């Protein structure tokens, strides 16, 4: 954990109250975001996102599998987060497991929608190859390389960038397969389908310190928080998921206020992220 003296605590809290944080940002300003795509060539898609000293890598691997019997017309997506001990010595051994699970669950809430798959940011029906028999399973693995607060937003951004970098091979299904047998397929090496990521939401975490709330908190600021609300918002301004963390209770009216602020902030973040992803893709195409 971050060890802070009383003076440092007062400095951080006072700064937030005066809308001037210790790194010179305002309450609702993000740190500069940098995106790099295609960092893991073995994966179908990957991206590395840095926000200040927070550094995360996300990779997408697609595997053919059988859709679940309850939802024969939908593919599968699963998200796993791993906290590397390089980020902090306390993640050594099993130390990072709790935080990893916490982040995985929060990301699943925010990006994958409900149990039925309704409201998911990722269009699950586009992953189907043969209804009821074969579908793509997307495994999204994230790795926290360096941690300086606001991991959830960074992970959300990395997943979005990795998905827009993902190419899923075109599959040709051999005609004539019938009945219960698995259809024969031919996976193309050259043709890839690009993934539609326009509906993938961004996650905005508002951290409440004192009477105010801030976005993109550093780990020092997070150590002073009373509670945090993570809201995922898509391009249309719909709220796709929400989680509250932290010990203290929140007044319901404040929650509603936070949601409207998050909606406003998410527009800027979404635009920023889109241009960064486009720039990263352009760099990758050049090289």
């Amino acid at each position, binding site marked *: 954990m971050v060890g802070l003296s009383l003076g440092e605590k007062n400095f951080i809290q006072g700064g937030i109250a005066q809308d001037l944080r210790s790194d010179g940002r305002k309450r609702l300003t993000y740190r500069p975001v940098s995106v790099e795509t295609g*960092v*893991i*060539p*073995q*994966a179908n898609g*990957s991206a590395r996102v840095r926000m*200040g*000293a927070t*550094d995360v*890598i996300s*990779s997408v*691997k697609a*595997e053919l599998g059988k859709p679940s019997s309850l939802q024969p017309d939908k593919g599968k997506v699963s998200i*796993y987060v*791993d906290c*590397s*001990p*390089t*980020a*902090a*010595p306390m993640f*050594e*051994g*099993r130390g990072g497991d709790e935080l990893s699970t916490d982040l995985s669950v929060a990301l699943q809430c925010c990006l994958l929608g409900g149990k039925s798959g309704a409201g998911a940011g990722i269009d699950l029906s586009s992953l189907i190859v043969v209804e009821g028999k074969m579908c793509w399973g997307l*495994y999204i*693995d994230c*790795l926290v*390389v*360096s*941690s*300086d607060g606001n991991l959830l937003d960074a992970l959300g951004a990395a997943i979005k960038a990795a998905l827009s970098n993902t190419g899923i091979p075109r599959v040709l299904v051999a005609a004539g397969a019938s009945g219960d047998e698995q259809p024969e397929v031919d996976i193309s090496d050259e043709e890839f389908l690009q993934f539609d990521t326009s509906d993938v939401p961004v996650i905005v975490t508002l951290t409440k310190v004192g009477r105010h709330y801030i976005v993109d908190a550093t780990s020092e600021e997070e150590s002073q928080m009373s509670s945090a609300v993570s809201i995922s918002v898509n391009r249309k301004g719909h709220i796709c998921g929400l989680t509250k963390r932290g010990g203290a209770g929140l007044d319901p009216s404040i929650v509603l206020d936070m949601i409207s602020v998050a909606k406003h902030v998410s527009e800027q973040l979404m635009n920023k992220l889109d241009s960064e992803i486009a720039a990263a893709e352009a760099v990758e195409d050049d090289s």
Partner: protein
Amino acid sequence: MEYVNPEGLRLDGRRPMEMRQIRAEIGSVAKADGSALFEMGNTKVIAAVYGPREVQNRSQQISDKALVRCEYSMANFSTGDRMRKPKGDRRSTEISLVIRQTMEACIMTHLMPRSQIDIFVQVLQADGGTRSACINAATLALADAGIPLRDLVTSCSAGYLNSTPLLDLNYVEDSAGGPDVTVGFLPKLDKVTLLQMDSKLSIDLFENVMQLAIEGCKAVANYIREILLENTKQLEYRRGL
């Protein structure tokens, strides 16, 4: 299977005595005291060093030297087939131990009694030679953290396939089942700190293969030295000296 074709080229187009392309970057983990990224071809690892600092677990404290700890972990996406491995399996425990012993041999632990140095290595991509890449990354990270070292320990592997000694095996060559010699070397002191081999090899051939691996270590050491010098120049420049 033919690992060296009649023209003397390997599967990935290298000559038998040729290394994969190496690339290193210092300071890739902002929060750590020292960190580095090291690539050997498609193998990519990150190392982070925390310390010297207070010993977390008092019972492990050593009164006359520093405690060195190491943890090796592989990312889920690092291998070709995706798999979820539990932490602390036998392979990673063994590699952690190897890296720890190799690094301990070159850190001047007697200068930092009652303290602890943590080395964390994270494999982002595995394509053979992760052991060597981890040691090279750890050396750079230790140097970046400013920890007193006797020498820069570097590592490289060599093997013997199709009656040809091969430098720096990749994953396919590594899985061929031939001998694989991993050497850790202190180039200035001219000493071997790590030596591992599996499979069998005649004594005269072993000498050749080990010599080849040592040459590889020297080449890596030269590159690492360049990177460190470049980094120091950058620091000097930023200070305005």
